[in-house]
């Protein structure tokens, strides 16, 4: 059985989730055929996400085909996508004058 490196849940997604701990420089296959790959710019732990396209600052992070937050800066393909470069839109008491 081939070891699955990462999963893209939905075709609309711009992030993949690592299914094993992956090292910088790894060329990750994003489909079983292996015709789409992304080179990791940093180490990605099991369960963590990396970008599969360039994501512009303030644009949506999409996983499960749904918006899970927005980028706080430009994110390059193969970069770790997490709380250092993503904010959520919900439960944001710090923005409570604008929301809900």
């Amino acid at each position, binding site marked *: 059985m081939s070891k*699955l490196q990462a999963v893209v849940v939905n075709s609309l997604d711009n992030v993949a989730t690592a299914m094993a701990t992956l090292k910088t420089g790894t060329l990750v296959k994003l489909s079983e055929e292996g015709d789409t790959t992304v080179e990791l710019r940093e180490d990605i*732990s099991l*369960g963590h996400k990396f970008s599969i396209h360039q994501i512009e600052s303030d644009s949506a992070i999409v996983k499960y085909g749904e918006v*899970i*937050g927005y980028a706080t800066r430009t994110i390059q393909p193969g970069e770790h996508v997490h709380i250092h470069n993503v904010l959520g839109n*919900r439960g944001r*008491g710090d923005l*409570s004058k604008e929301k*809900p």
Partner: protein
Amino acid sequence: MSFLAYPRPDNSFGVRNHVGILSMVACANDVARWISEQAPGSIAFTHQQGCCQTKPDLDIVTRTLISLGKNPNLASVLLVSLGCESIALNEVAEGISNSGKVVEQIVIQKLGGSSPAVAKGSRLARQLVIKASQIKQRSVPDSELRFGIKCGASDTTSGLISNPATGAAVDLLLDNGGSCIIGETTEFMGAEHILAKRAISAGVHQQLLNIVEQMEKRAIAAGTDMRGGQPTGGNIAGGITTIEEKSLGAIVKSGSKPIQAIYEYGHVPEGKGLFIIDSPGREPEALTGLAAAGAQIILFSTGRGAPQGFPFVPVIKITGNPQTYKNLPDHIDLYLTPEDIVGHSFNKAGKVIYEEALEVASGKRTIAETTGYTGATNIYTLGPVI
């Protein structure tokens, strides 16, 4: 399919046959626990509520205790009261005995304090255990089963593996005529538009959006980004970035069937199908909400390895995280491999979970039942402690 169960007077079926020692108030917890330790076959439920609270919260605690007492996994109940709490002992006793179940009660302050209370209580509990032991298991169809569904200590493997696999098991039970309860309203946030499409009516649809809005307002009232609290530090370490991501991964554990109705915390949904109990995500309160709703078995999907079970409801821990399975054997019942599932249908994994649930229903012990890690329980309340 069928399982072995203990028949109850209200025509429900228990998968366990415990005598429940229910503490009425935080101040009676230790006596309840000491009684259960001296009466093997009994088990204590303790919590931090029951006094110095506003009326709406006391009402929640009262109805939750009644519903817990009615859970089919309890053969009979001993209520342990301190004597000066704000919960009405007789109301709880009457509520539970309406199900036809035997309910005994002791009041610590009337009995001369904790030592005589433990002596009298354990004597009563042992008699109840002997009576309960005469109830014989019999084979009943799986339509008599009610699952509670929970995910906890989640990471991204939860949303990709163990939650959708659990959802497939839920679909199997509902196809077979059973019922299922989900809670954790916080973890609908960012995914409620998807879940609401499964509401059976416009009313239930709106109610779902309302409970999420109210939960979000309570979080926002704290004036900070709720990240760190939800998703938790552990969720974040496991790769979950926002509550939206957590929720989208969480709702799939409810499967794909229609949502019949939404209930406030502490109520017992009537009928078959899938129901929502409005509850928070935190384990001590969420698990109690599922048990109070009449779940005989809880399917608990975890990424990072939540430890706990529940005193009288077997909790089956399911993970898709290989590191957690390897490192935390005391916390996990079932491991689903990524290679088996991701990108494929979850039917196979759902069947594995479903068959395990029927085994556990018929008597197979869960890991939490054998470790005894079942004491981290509470009842969800909304208002201030006063």
